[in-house]
């Protein structure tokens, strides 16, 4: 997988899709060539090869259809259909068919090339599709899938997006563009996601519609503004139209009708596509005429309604504020420009003097006076001097003010009794010629108003967000990655320190022994001296002199001994060692703090992924005409960004499966006691060091009998094997390659090849998937993934003189077993553990290590490993202990090694292999089955 640094969004998926497709194309090509060779030799092509090709085509199809690349998905669907028939022996693979597949393959390659170069999958697939259909029709009319196929192809033809053409003339990327495009894309994608979310909430009546419209308006406005900054007038224009449309609803405080909502969806999708294009190619343009027309139509329709309405109520309270600023004198522009040059802000202030006020003239004058204190009033309409106190309605005043003060100052200044502030907006005076394309229908005053940035318009919300504002900055994830690595190194170095300290301690304790021994020797010398003294008192002359000399020597020896033992006791060293020990534990704390600190910088809420699914579920539900609610819980749960990125695809697949296969059709639901609308719950939560993601549907549930039948039918499993399987194991069938329960093949969740990919992806993240299902009541998938990929708690053990790390996550307990409690059941070594049989495996056999330890022991140490479902006992020679280890990936040479998920560097610099419990258990089960 590519180490993409950018936010999870469509363009990232496209990039991933492309790199993935390359791999699959290679596979397809290789296998087609091989198959051709085999056929030429009159031999039979193996099912495995067909499966591989089928999976390749299917995977491309799945992603392409999710990304709405109808040409690619249409073509791969056809390829897949052929391969499926071949696989099911409904079609005999001939060289002619291989030729057709090659043609299809070539077309597919060129479509993908096109996608790579300009982000669309434009291209003519009709010839190839017809060719494939001919093959399908010519050979089997029995199944109706050919019909389904053509129908689907028909549908997909309609879906083809309009050709790419630059709608507006835009010059080559400007400097500003290149400078801001990164930030622009980040923000825009975020805004798009938010927009979609609010739209869906609005559609489901989950929010206050007025608030929602306000927010949508703000988002469109922001997108418009930032698109303008990078000079993408095409996007700016679409956003502008959306803003326009929304502003109507905003002013009228109305709820958009469903057709308006769809149009807005079209608009935001167009913007999303364009933004994705920018990310892909940096400056591609999409045709926006269609979208603009659609949006304009809605706006026009509304205008019509409004004008008829306003005719009916001539003296309504609602006043078009822009009226106050129409017919501006010519010299005003110059005044504004001058003010802007001087660094002043230009504000449009509109207020109303209450209808009940008896001194309207004075009030208005006071108000203007207050404004004049802030700056200079360069325009006022109507003239406040001429306001008549006797008018019975409210009086509206529009003022243009140049000031160095901010919006809120103005707001405070004119918060006067009986004065209602209607609007204060900052006018962005552009000193450069405005180049925004004008539309036929836009009237001049409107255009002027649209130039005004309304960021500060929403005074209350501005202050609200300011309160909770988090100061953030963008950091290249590569920097974080390298920090992460350094933190990992720190953990290793700390371990090294700890080891050294304990080694030094050992040395010191040995020298302490030496001191004791030395003092013992000293004691002996003292004894000797005493004895000598006794002797010398009885001797005379020379002997006495000798004794004296000896005595002296002993004395010297004694004091030397004392000195030596003093030195050896190393009081200094001891105290230093004590400090070293302290420092090391301080280092431990620091390093784990740094580690968790760095880790937290990589943590992002899973919300980004979850939010996408609202749209996904809505779209699929509409397509399938099902009524489905998506409930999301725990979207604030944070986990490593890398994992969030990787999780997107498998989750998409699972949700699609739940919506497509899990939830029954509305008619079927009506026959049960369930509510008409199906519910899919998506939740995330922490469980210890793991994140647990659950996908729950209240659909029909998995039927183990149906699964078994299907597996038999497809030849995935034998009856014999099925008989041995427990109910729970049977549910796992859906994760097997080439399996599906959907009788009807749809473009949405395909033929079930996806689930095995889902499981593989999750296992690559060191995670597990579990199924819990009840027939007729629904299915619950729960995914468990470690919070971070980099550092784990592990149990270090020695097996066959080699150190291995077992993730603590997978270790359920450690037991000691006496030799005589080990039994052999059907050739498998087992031990009784609390009444249950636990099969024992030796790692040498499972990992296919060349050497084998033949230590003879009476009692064995067994580590019980679990993958959540199954448990298995692994015999170990020695336990070292628990430690925090940094996961390093093994070189690519070893990517196929079974039972090992990575490596870790220990304190002494040596490498320990990390055992992969899931794959060890699987290997062990296979071994058992073989026996």
């Amino acid at each position, binding site marked *: 997988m590519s180490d993409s640094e950018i936010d999870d969004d469509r363009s990232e998926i496209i990039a991933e899709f492309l790199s993935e497709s390359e791999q699959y194309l290679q596979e397809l090509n290789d296998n087609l060539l091989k198959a051709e060779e085999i056929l030429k030799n009159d031999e039979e092509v193996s099912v495995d090869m067909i499966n591989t090709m089928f999976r390749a085509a299917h995977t491309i199809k799945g992603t392409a259809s999710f990304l709405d690349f109808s040409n690619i998905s249409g073509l791969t669907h056809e390829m897949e259909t052929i391969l499926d028939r071949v696989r099911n022996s409904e079609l005999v693979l001939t060289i002619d068919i291989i030729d057709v597949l090659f043609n299809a393959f070539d077309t597919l390659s060129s479509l993908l090339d096109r996608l790579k170069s300009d982000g669309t999958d434009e291209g003519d697939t009709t010839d190839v599709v017809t060719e494939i259909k001919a093959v399908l029709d010519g050979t089997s009319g029995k199944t109706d899938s050919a019909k389904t196929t053509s129908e689907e192809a028909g549908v997909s033809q309609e879906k083809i997006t309009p050709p790419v053409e630059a709608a507006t003339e835009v010059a080559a990327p400007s400097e500003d563009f290149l400078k801001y495009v990164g930030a622009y894309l980040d923000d825009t994608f975020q805004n798009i996601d938010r927009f979609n979310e609010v739209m869906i909430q609005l559609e489901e009546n989950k929010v206050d519609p007025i608030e929602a419209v306000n927010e949508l308006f703000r988002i469109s406005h922001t997108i418009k503004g930032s698109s303008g900054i990078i000079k993408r007038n095409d996007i700016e224009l679409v956003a502008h139209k959306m803003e326009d449309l929304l502003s109507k609803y905003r002013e009228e405080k109305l709820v958009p009708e469903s057709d308006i909502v769809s149009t807005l969806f079209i608009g935001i999708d167009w913007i999303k596509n364009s933004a994705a294009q920018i990310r892909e190619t940096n400056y591609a343009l999409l045709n926006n005429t269609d979208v603009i027309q659609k949006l304009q139509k809605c706006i026009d329709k509304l205008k019509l309604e409004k004008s008829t309405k306003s005719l009916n109520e001539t003296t309504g309270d609602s006043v078009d504020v822009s009226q106050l600023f129409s017919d501006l004198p010519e010299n005003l522009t110059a005044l504004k420009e001058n003010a802007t040059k001087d660094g002043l802000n230009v504000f449009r202030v509109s207020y109303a003097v209450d209808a009940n006020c008896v001194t309207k003239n004075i009030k208005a004058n006071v108000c203007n006076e207050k404004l004049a204190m802030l700056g200079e009033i360069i325009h006022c309409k109507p003239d406040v001097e001429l306001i008549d106190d006797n008018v019975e309605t409210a009086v509206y005043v529009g003022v243009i003010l140049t000031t160095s003060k901010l919006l809120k100052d103005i707001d405070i200044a004119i918060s006067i009794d009986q004065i209602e502030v209607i609007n204060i907006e900052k006018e962005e005076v552009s000193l450069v010629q405005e180049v925004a394309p004008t539309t036929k229908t836009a009237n001049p005053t409107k255009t002027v108003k649209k130039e005004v940035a309304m960021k500060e318009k929403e005074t209350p919300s501005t202050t609200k967000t300011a309160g909770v504002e988090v100061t953030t900055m963008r950091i290249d994830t590569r920097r974080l990655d390298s920090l992460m690595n350094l933190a990992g190194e720190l953990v290793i170095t700390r371990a090294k320190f700890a080891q050294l300290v304990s080694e030094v301690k050992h040395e010191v304790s040995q020298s302490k022994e030496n001191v004791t021994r030395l003092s013992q020797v000293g004691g002996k010398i003292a004894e000797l001296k005493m004895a000598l003294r006794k002797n010398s008192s009885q001797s005379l002359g020379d002997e006495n002199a000798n004794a004296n000399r000896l005595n002296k020597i002993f004395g010297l020896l004694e004091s030397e001994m004392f000195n030596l033992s003093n030195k050896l006791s190393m009081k200094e060293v001891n105290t230093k060692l004590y400090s070293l020990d302290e420092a090391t534990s301080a280092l431990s704390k620091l390093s784990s703090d740094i580690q968790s600190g760095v880790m937290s910088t990589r943590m992002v809420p899973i919300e980004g992924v979850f939010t996408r699914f609202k749209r996904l579920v809505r779209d699929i539900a509409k397509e399938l005409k099902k009524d489905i609610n998506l409930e999301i819980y725990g979207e604030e749960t944070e986990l490593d960004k890398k994992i969030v990125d990787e999780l997107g695809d498998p989750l998409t697949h699972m949700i699609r499966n739940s919506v497509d296969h899990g939830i029954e059709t509305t008619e079927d639901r009506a026959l049960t006691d369930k509510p008409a609308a199906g519910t899919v719950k998506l939740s995330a939560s922490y469980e210890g060091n793991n994140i647990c993601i659950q996908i729950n549907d209240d659909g029909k549930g998995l039927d183990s009998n149906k699964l078994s039948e299907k597996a038999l039918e497809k030849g995935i499993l034998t009856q014999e094997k099925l008989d041995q399987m427990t109910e729970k194991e049977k549910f796992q069938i859906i994760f097997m390659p080439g399996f599906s329960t959907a009788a009807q093949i749809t473009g949405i969740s395909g033929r079930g090849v996806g689930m095995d990919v889902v499981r593989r992806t999750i296992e690559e993240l060191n995670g597990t998937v579990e199924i819990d299902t009840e027939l007729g009541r629904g299915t619950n998938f729960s995914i468990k993934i470690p919070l971070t990929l980099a550092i784990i708690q592990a149990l270090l053990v020695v097996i066959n003189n080699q150190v291995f790390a077992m993730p603590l996550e997978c270790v359920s307990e450690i037991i000691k077993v006496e030799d005589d409690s080990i039994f052999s059941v059907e050739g498998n070594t087992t031990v009784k553990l609390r009444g249950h049989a636990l099969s024992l495996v030796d790692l040498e056999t499972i990992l*296919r290590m060349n050497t084998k330890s033949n230590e003879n022991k009476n009692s064995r140490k067994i580590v019980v490993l679990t993958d959540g479902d199954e448990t298995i006992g692994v015999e170990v020679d020695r336990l070292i202990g628990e430690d925090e280890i940094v996961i390093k990936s093994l070189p690519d040479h070893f*990517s196929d090694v079974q039972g090992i998920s990575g490596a870790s560097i220990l304190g002494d610099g040596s490498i320990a292999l990390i055992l992969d419990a899931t794959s060890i258990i699987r290997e062990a089960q296979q071994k058992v089955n073989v026996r």
Partner: protein
Amino acid sequence: MVEDLTVDNMLDIQNVEDSDDVEQFVCFKLANEEYAVRIIDIQEVNRVQMITHIPQMPKFVLGVINIRGSVISVFDLRIKFNLADVAFSEKTKIVVAEVGSVSFSFIVDEILENIKLSKSKIDPAPSVASNIDKDCVVGIGELEGRMVTIIDLGKLQEDVIREIGVGNTK
């Protein structure tokens, strides 16, 4: 503690006139025969250290070592090329290479000098002269009467991948 011997300070590079077709090679001994590899493919030369065995691999794959925090594969070319076995000694070294973006290392019995050879001095490999896979051999160079087999590490790496069979089970 393993002392790193970098190519730069370990080898005294003779100053031969620089010209385009002259390339630098590191010479080493494998089972009493002399071999050479391009110096630009070599990252560093280390003393032998603890090698962690990896299961399910052909015999010539000894396992992995820790090169300053990276986990690097170690190959024994004597086994790969079917050469005589030589016991590890003080002179035995681990040569770390980086070809493309792939790093790997291999055991050599002794590091010899650093040489410069012009392309014209390299003869194509004779078909039967060498034990080792012809694919990996660039040619035979002659140096003061000694024959040096020049190995292409890129080809070697491809050959290794083929032999390990990475991706076959996927």
